[in-house]
């Protein structure tokens, strides 16, 4: 998709002229949206956060969720795309089965039972079919993100009945039935299905329930709530004004921030914080808490600028505004009195302070699991190229001959720049390192944990360089160049769309993405507006004719047919 990055930045000319409010222009915009063939419906494994959030949303807080989750997979820049490729392994399933038992037992424990049961059974030691069906209809719909089909209801009730008979307890019976829901692939995966497009244009579209999940996971990183499921049931969600109404509600909700956090955590590779470590004998300030705080600081900065302030996405690369806690105060050499702010104090770096934008915050600088004892300009440069510019850096050639010395203690090459320059003299390496190193060298004033430094091994650090032909003196100036680069904002657009649909954009979607990029600019680079445009677009629910679902389309029974409770 990198070809998409090269469209002329004409959008920026339109910014001032078209800063219209969304609601007045949105309906017309949908009409202007270029046709998009859509892509296949996808089949995504819930990730750990989504699983845990589902349980919490559905059964309430306080349920302990044990066991190891299957590791995520990053594909084409996003875990959200990897989720459409991963499977459930035997040992992974074993853990899901364990989790299902523990969750069911807690959900139906005496203390919680009353709150979650929609009915009182006729007897606590006999199977009450009507009550069981009401229970499974309610939780089945929430867990499967659509109503249970009659066959599913029958299958689940059968389990519950047998278990009630075996244990002489209706609640235990429900517990086994709930386990049955929790280990089902219909819960563990987000199953998308499509239907013929009502307009008869030839392309297919997602069913209302599948659309509800796409919208909900993109905006909230959570399963659809009852209101959204009701809107899918009534058909409201598939009418433009009905969809808009739901989307407005969801963006206005506090939970939108958690969706924004999840998206940026994926796009910025924050999964790498898991297990991240730096050598404490080299960096005494490093603790595992410091990397947690660094991650949290970046996410708070993002949510504050994009959601709370409704700011310009590009300002993330230049902003002086952030949040600090006491632990980070020591890293940034700022006295922190966080007592009034629940641990996190809003803070604006001074003009002379060498911090501005995400790239100068520890959350970016520290995030290199391959180097625990020093900074790596190569990795930092690679991160900027791949995560923020959506460019692919080729892997190192297999038969590299590293004749030149790379040793932090070598008196001839004191700084990373000197060492890497030696590296770049080698023509095999030069091509790719020229793509990565200059960007990373701009950040050499920050060590491996993000602490500011002027020198390395007593030699002054030169952080200057050029990006896209524009010279800069340091990371702050580079941040300004990135701020102004259309590649940066276009990359966000592409990633946000791909994150939402769980696959890479297809060649046929090029026009649609171009359109989206232009609109992002005319909207003033407001992330909530971008999210709104994506989830309300026809492209977002379009399913290609050759997509995954042709078989389902041929089935007489609609996938979303509800069962009688």
């Amino acid at each position, binding site marked *: 998709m990198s070809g998409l990055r090269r469209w002329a930045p004409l959008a920026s000319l339109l910014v001032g002229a078209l800063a219209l409010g969304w609601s007045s222009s949105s309906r017309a915009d949908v009409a202007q949206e270029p046709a998009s063939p859509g892509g296949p*419906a996808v089949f995504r494994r819930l990730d750990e956060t989504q699983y845990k959030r589902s349980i919490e949303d559905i059964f309430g807080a306080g349920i302990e969720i044990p066991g190891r989750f299957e590791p995520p997979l990053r594909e084409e820049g996003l875990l959200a795309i990897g989720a459409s490729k991963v*499977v459930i*392994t035997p040992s992974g399933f074993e853990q899901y089965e364990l989790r299902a038992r523990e969750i069911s037992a807690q959900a139906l424990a005496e203390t919680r039972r009353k709150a979650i049961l929609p009915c009182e059974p006729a007897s606590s030691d006999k199977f009450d079919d009507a009550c069981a069906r009401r229970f499974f209809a309610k939780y089945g719909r929430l867990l499967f993100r659509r109503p249970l089909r009659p066959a599913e209801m029958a299958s689940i009730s059968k*389990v519950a009945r*047998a278990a009630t008979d075996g*244990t002489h307890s209706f609640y235990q019976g429900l517990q086994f039935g709930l386990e049955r829901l929790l280990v089902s692939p219909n819960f563990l995966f987000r199953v998308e299905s499509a239907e013929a497009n009502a307009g008869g244009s030839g392309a297919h579209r997602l069913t209302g329930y599948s659309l509800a999940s796409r919208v909900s996971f993109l905006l909230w990183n959570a399963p659809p709530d009852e209101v959204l499921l009701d809107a899918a049931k009534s058909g409201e969600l598939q009418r433009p004004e009905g969809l808009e109404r739901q989307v407005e509600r969801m963006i206005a909700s506090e939970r939108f921030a958690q969706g924004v956090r999840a998206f940026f955590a994926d796009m910025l590779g924050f999964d790498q914080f898991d297990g991240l470590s730096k*050598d404490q004998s080299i960096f005494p300030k490093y603790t595992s808490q410091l990397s947690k705080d660094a991650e949290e600081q970046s996410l708070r900065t993002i949510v504050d600028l994009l959601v709370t302030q409704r700011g310009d996405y590009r300002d993330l690369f230049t902003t002086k505004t952030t949040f600090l806690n006491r632990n980070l105060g020591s890293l940034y050499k700022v006295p922190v009195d966080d007592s009034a702010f629940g641990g996190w104090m809003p803070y604006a770096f001074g003009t002379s302070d060498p911090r501005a934008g995400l790239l100068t915050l520890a959350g970016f600088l520290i995030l290199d699991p391959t180097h625990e004892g020093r900074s790596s300009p190569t990795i930092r440069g690679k991160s900027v190229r791949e995560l923020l510019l959506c460019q692919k850096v080729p892997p190192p050639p297999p038969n590299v001959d590293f004749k030149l010395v790379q040793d932090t203690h070598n008196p001839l090459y004191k700084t990373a720049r000197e060492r890497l320059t030696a590296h770049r003299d080698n023509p095999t390496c030069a091509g790719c390192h020229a793509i990565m190193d200059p960007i990373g060298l701009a950040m050499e004033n920050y060590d491996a944990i993000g602490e500011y430094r002027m020198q390395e091994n007593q030699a002054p650090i030169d952080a200057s360089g050029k990006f896209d032909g524009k010279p800069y003196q340091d990371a702050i100036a580079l941040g300004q160049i990135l701020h102004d680069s259309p590649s940066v904002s276009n990359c966000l657009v592409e990633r946000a769309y791909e994150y939402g649909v769980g696959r890479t954009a297809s060649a046929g979607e090029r026009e649609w993405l171009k359109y989206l990029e232009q609109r992002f600019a005319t909207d003033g680079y407001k992330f909530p507006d971008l999210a709104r445009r994506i989830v309300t677009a026809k492209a977002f629910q379009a399913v290609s004719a050759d997509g995954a679902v042709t078989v*389902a389309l041929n089935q007489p029974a609609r996938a979303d047919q509800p069962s009688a409770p």
Partner: protein
Amino acid sequence: MTRKWTRRKVLKGVLAGSAVTVALPLLDCFLDGNGEALASGAPMPVRFGTWFWGCGVNAARWFPDKVGRDYDLKTELLPIKPYQDKVTVFSGFNCLLGGKPNLAHWSGIMATYTGVCPTKGGMGNGTADAPTIDCLVSDAIGSRSRFRSLEIACTGQSNVSYSMRAGSTVNPSEVNPVNLYKRIFGPEFQDPNGSEFKPDPAILLRRSVLSSVKDDREQLMRTVGAADRARVDQYFTSLRDTEQQLGLMLERPAPAEACVLPKSPAEAETGPVWDNAIRTHDALGQLIVMALACNQTRVFNVALSTAPSNLRKAGSAVAFHELTHEEPIDQQLGYQPESTFFMEKSMETFASMLHLLDSVKEGNGTLLDHMLILATSESNYAKIHSIDSLPILVAGTAGGKWKSGVHVNGKGDPCSRIGLTIQQALGMPVGSWGSDAMATSKPIAEVI
């Protein structure tokens, strides 16, 4: 050893890492006349494991010169000396790309483990274009034990695993000894030598839950696209594994004389710092060994680290993988001394695994005698990502089916020959293995 030591005490000593060799009488009533089969006539169970280390070797300091028996042990292989007659060394077995790219730190391991050079990946992960050998073996011999296989990684990262069912999902590794202990020896463990056997009635209900989920299959297969149907299938395969596991828990386990319930390990720091990694290796390894002895699994996979190894000495700024590329070759020594530290230590760690396996007496041999363990790395010389003459060892004798203690030179043949030979020695009806340039139907006659 004094006479006051009970079997239990002795084994606990072994599990605590003590260096004693344990000679345990397997009660005669369990054995046939010559100690190589159980009294029932069933042969002693055969097991299989893989043991992976990253970033290769220094060829001149690792590969023996002498081919055949009594091969010479160079410095880097010296740690396996106590087990030399149980270890086969392979040289000259290559990853033959046949026009595919050499994916750095990926092609080599997949070639040996799957018999197919992969087309996508690099830097320790990517796609397996065929199932890894441990999966094939566990399909053949793993279904009668509680766990079809157990995976462990020693640097704290559960995604470090080279066990794959084809595709890009790894069978995740256990990284924390406390968690692995709970999984194997927690409340669901049934002591094969326990006098009481009372299956938990809840197991039947758990099985009925899983069996009922199969009702969802048909509808799901109709809903998802062709590419995702394989993923649905994998889900149901995994489900059936757990179902089978539950089924076994309803049966009285066969006695396993060498089985002793180990103590729960203490919580300890994990991560890529060398001292933590080997402590983790030994703690996880001890549990794996007891899982084998107690018939909880017949297949296991160990990853000492990821292929571009992030193992690191405490206080050192640079990890093993970077060292291989960046450290100068010491002109006097002729190798990179810092990198070599990890290569030598990797073999010491492998020897420690062999020690654990060889310390458990079983029949008239040891656990190691009743298994094969394939140990390898993804490169020959990591500095230049070379994949010719991959360093490959096979330890054990598969209950006498494998002639161990020799050095075999493959003279440039594909390394898939080793995987093929292993499968045949384990009694699997496999005539050829691998594809493209890696395809072979030629087992290695020197060892079978």
